């Protein structure tokens, strides 16, 4: 009998990090993610790890930088305003090729905003956020189980590619409770010969992102770009569920995808043929899946809890001749399955009228 436990999303994520062997957490309180540092302030230390409530998010991400440079699996968590403060540190870590996991339990914004869930940090997560030519590996869980599983995955990918990985959750996922299967991950360690451990028995090493000599920066940028291409080839994750002869595809991620599933189920009960695409990695974006589905379906509805961010990537990936539409619900308001279903029907009617 496997361990199935009823857990809050934030706690499942924290347990995933611990299962992945993360023993160093540095973070700062911010609503709506405080369950994570509060849980880890006890459980990280209970398992022999280090928990520091840092003085700011800026200090937090820099403590991650040091811990990562020392070869450890390390994590922080925050929400939009705190993630904004971490951008410099993330850029430095990407440039220095350091792994870490950063969790964004998204609230609303911009500015101080509100504390209810939105998907308004998609751009911040996937379009750099910080300065320079780099990207974060971005994972978007959609269930409490995925909060656990993708936490483990995030550490693996971060180590594999020597790059920061972000888990883009939101306040709903953080607070909701669902049963979780706590599967112990198979392999926990990546060799890190580059880590700074004191130069005993080897030449001194450096962890740096400064490239001043003529030509060096270009070489480094191209190296990182090649790494991101490999990431896209090997580790893109997406969920696709397509009816034969589907007339409309709906694309959504995170908690919004849960609501979309209800709309898709309702549509199918009414006899509609529908496709459903749920990006799990937001970077790398599952462009191939979008192109494939849109080439066969022709009409794509993107549903997201912001004023339209992921839709840009959907448009870029969509097959020529396909239509991409947006149902945007920003500011902490949730789209309902009925609203989504009505929008789907409206789009199908428009198509029929214009024929």
């Amino acid at each position: 009998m496997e361990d199935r436990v009823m857990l809050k999303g934030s706690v499942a994520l924290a347990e995933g990090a611990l299962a992945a062997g993360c023993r160093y957490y540095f973070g700062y309180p911010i609503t709506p993610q405080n369950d994570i540092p509060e849980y880890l302030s006890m459980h990280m230390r209970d398992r022999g790890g280090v928990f520091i409530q840092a003085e700011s998010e800026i200090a937090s991400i820099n403590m991650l930088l040091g811990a990562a440079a020392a070869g450890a699996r390390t994590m922080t968590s925050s929400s939009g305003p705190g993630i904004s403060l971490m951008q410099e540190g993330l850029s430095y870590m990407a440039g220095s090729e350091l792994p870490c996991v950063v969790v964004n339990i998204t609230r609303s914004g911009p500015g101080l905003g509100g504390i209810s869930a939105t998907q308004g940090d998609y751009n911040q997560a996937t379009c750099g956020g910080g300065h320079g030519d780099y990207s974060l590996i971005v994972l978007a869980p959609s269930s409490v189980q995925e909060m656990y599983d993708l936490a483990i995955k995030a550490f693996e990918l971060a180590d594999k590619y020597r790059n920061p990985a972000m888990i883009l959750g939101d306040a709903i996922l953080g607070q909701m409770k669902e049963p979780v299967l706590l599967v112990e991950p198979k392999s926990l360690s990546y060799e890190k010969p580059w880590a700074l451990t004191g130069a005993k028995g080897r030449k001194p090493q450096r962890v740096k992102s400064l490239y001043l000599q003529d030509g060096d920066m270009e070489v480094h940028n191209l190296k990182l770009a090649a790494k991101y291409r490999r990431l896209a080839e090997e580790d893109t994750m997406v969920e696709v569920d397509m009816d034969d002869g589907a007339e409309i595809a709906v694309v959504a991620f995170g908690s919004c995808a849960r609501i979309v599933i209800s709309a898709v189920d309702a549509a199918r009960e009414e006899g509609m043929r529908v496709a459903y695409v749920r990006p799990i990695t937001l970077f790398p974006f599952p462009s191939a899946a979008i192109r494939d589905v849109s080439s066969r379906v022709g009409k794509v509805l993107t549903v997201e809890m912001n004023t339209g961010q992921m839709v840009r990537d959907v448009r870029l990936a969509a097959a020529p001749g396909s239509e991409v539409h947006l149902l945007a619900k920003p500011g902490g308001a949730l789209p309902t399955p009925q609203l989504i279903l009505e929008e789907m029907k409206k789009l199908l009617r428009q198509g029929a009228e214009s024929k």
Partner: protein
Amino acid sequence: MKQVFKRPETLIKTTNHFCPGCHHGTAHRLIAEAIDLFQISDSTVGVAGVGCGVFLYDYLALDVCEAPHGRAPAVATGLKRVHPENIVFTYQGDGDLAAIGMSEIIHTANRGENITVIFINNCVYGMTGGQMAPTTLSGQKTTTSPQGRDYAYDGYPIRMTEMLAALDGVAFAARVAVNKPATLNKAGQAVNKAFEMQINKMGLSFVEILSACPTNWGMTPSESLRRIEAEMIPFYPLGIFKEKK
């Protein structure tokens, strides 16, 4: 003949790219001598701040991590918490530590992190071309205080050593200078003591080194030594302000 002065082992033999009279080379030597003295080069990790000090890894044969501007104490915290057996030190200038990094140094000191902080105070921003620093003195002309620093308009200089000495987590706080043999001698002793405090797990050890920046002071190296003596030391008094036993 017996050799009575030679380059320390941990100091890499290379052409020193710093300006003539710049005291980074001297500071690097003092650190290298401390590391040689305690035979800890195998287990020491340096954290370089942003500024002329970033080139630490070109001069010291140690593992070195670059930190974002001001964040070296936080980076050092991460390194030390993962490998407490390593000796970890930061190397920071006055912009890095006393301007943008003020929060990180105060809180790292407040937590009593068992690291060493070497603070190069030359009253100006060197790398970026001579702007005013939190340590710039009254009347000093810099590229962002061209009429000379005016305390009423520009604020006052910060005496970091005294401020940090007031924090319980700080085990050792000293200010030294390297402008002449007498002060240089004491500077070496303070740097040695700072590393010794870390080895003995006493808490955070901090050494502020009053240094010359002839280029951005618009002076010859010799004139800059006189400035340290005549202007800097009276405002930034030398001494050990805290030493936990």
